[in-house]
């Protein structure tokens, strides 16, 4: 198992590196102006020259994404557990959840900024709103698709709802929860950036917005590179955590 991991990152590198080289060559060969598409070397040198401010912005955005994801997780898991205990609530609750889900965040984000200011709080809320739905839906179907033979066994002991939930339904739902996390993890970064884009005092989204309004594309792309790297990092962490937590499923 451990020998597979380096080969995976080598594989990723083997795909990404040629793509970057090709990009570099095309930009140079066609002499594309920097305000249309900067070459990867220009982007990376921008990143290196402004390492400090990018670092600070990344920390802000990552923090917002993590707290927002935690919020979305708590809300999604909490509501799913509630519906697992009282299935009668499902229809009403899911209608509400779909209402939230189908409201465009791009419309809510500026409102929250007006109400709550340019700090991190509205970003965390937006990220929470964006990430909770996949968690809720997956967790709920996980709770509902618990192994029938195990459920029968617990029912034959006259286990109460809480005992069934804790001992069978929740562990059966964990693989589903990780499937949701693989969606919601990277989504959390997008949520934080989108929220920052609509007005923020710091963060990668703000850098992107500033760069965009000044047509400073190397700046913009540098932030995009950082976001892509962070997304990959999130995903990798989630995969590692899944292996540890859901140890009983055949890999």
């Amino acid at each position, binding site marked *: 198992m451990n020998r597979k991991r380096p080969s995976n990152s080598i594989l990723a590198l083997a795909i990404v590196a040629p793509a970057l080289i090709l990009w570099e060559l095309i930009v140079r060969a066609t002499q594309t102006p920097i305000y249309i598409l900067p070459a990867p070397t220009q982007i990376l040198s921008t990143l290196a020259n402004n390492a400090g401010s990018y670092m600070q912005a990344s920390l802000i955005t990552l923090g917002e994404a993590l707290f927002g994801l935690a919020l979305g997780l708590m809300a999604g898991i909490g509501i799913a557990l509630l519906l697992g205990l009282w299935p009668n609530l499902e229809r009403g609750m899911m209608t509400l959840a779909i209402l939230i889900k189908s409201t465009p965040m791009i419309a809510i984000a500026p409102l929250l900024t007006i109400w709550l200011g340019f700090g991190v709080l509205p970003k965390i809320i937006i990220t929470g709103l964006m990430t909770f739905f996949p968690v809720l839906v997956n967790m709920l179907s996980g709770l509902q698709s618990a*192994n029938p*033979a*195990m459920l*029968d*066994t*617990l*029912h*034959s*002991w*006259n*286990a*109460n709802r809480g*005992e069934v939930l804790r*001992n*069978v339904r929740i*562990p059966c739902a964990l693989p589903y929860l990780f499937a949701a996390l693989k969606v919601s993890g990277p989504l959390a970064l997008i949520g934080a950036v989108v929220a920052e884009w609509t007005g923020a005092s710091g963060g990668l989204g703000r850098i992107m917005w500033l760069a965009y309004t000044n047509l400073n594309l190397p700046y913009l792309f540098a932030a995009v590179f950082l976001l892509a790297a962070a997304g990959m990092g999130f995903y990798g962490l989630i995969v590692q955590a899944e292996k540890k937590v859901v*140890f*009983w*499923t*055949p890999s």
Partner: protein
Amino acid sequence: MNISIQDLSHTYDALPAPIEALSSVSLQIPSGQFAALIGPSGCGKSTVLRLLAGLLKPNCGMIYLDDFPPPRAIAQKRVAWMAQSPALLPWKTARDNIELAQRVNPQPRRNSLSSDELLNLVDLADFADVYPFSLSGGMQQRVALARSLALNASVWLMDEPFASLDELTRESLAFEVIRLWHIFRVTVLWVTHNIYESVRLADRIMVMSPRPGHIHADIEVPLSRPRDETSTEFLAIVKQIRAALKAE
């Protein structure tokens, strides 16, 4: 614990049409008897056991375990139900699976054996801390057996518990059950497809008709254990059961 079933019928609400699984089943099993239930596939054997275990509610008819209807007996964990799949929780070790049976709906006034003693009984003392996915099918069923014993129930409902195992394992586990039955002095209702197995194990064999099932023949096995499968008495009973199964 006596098992008493009177005029039990059960129909499943299935699509496109309801399925009548049992029609007017009546039987009495005295406390401490090892009774077998045999019949063609789909005749409703599992349905009888699920009704006894409180996993289904009967459409009509009466079920009593001593003087209690199944839900009361289940609430006190007087009934151990075991099916073909061991249904162990894969995220719990053998010991934790067994202890879960004691922790869920605990009955503190009825003390049962400890998980270590139970693992000893099924000969798995060395595998206490192993997860089910590292156990063979037969070992998993032995853990499931120990888990059923952990309830310290007075009735064992066993729905082809070893049917998915190979012949050798199945036979040795069946003898294991006989040994444990002697120790615990419980009532057993054992569902099987296998005529030889039923004669090898049971005091009494009830033969069910095809669906909708009812008890079609009720055959005593007046042989002492261990039983000689080649003896003429044994083979005579086998023949009798075979005839009863064919009669339908």
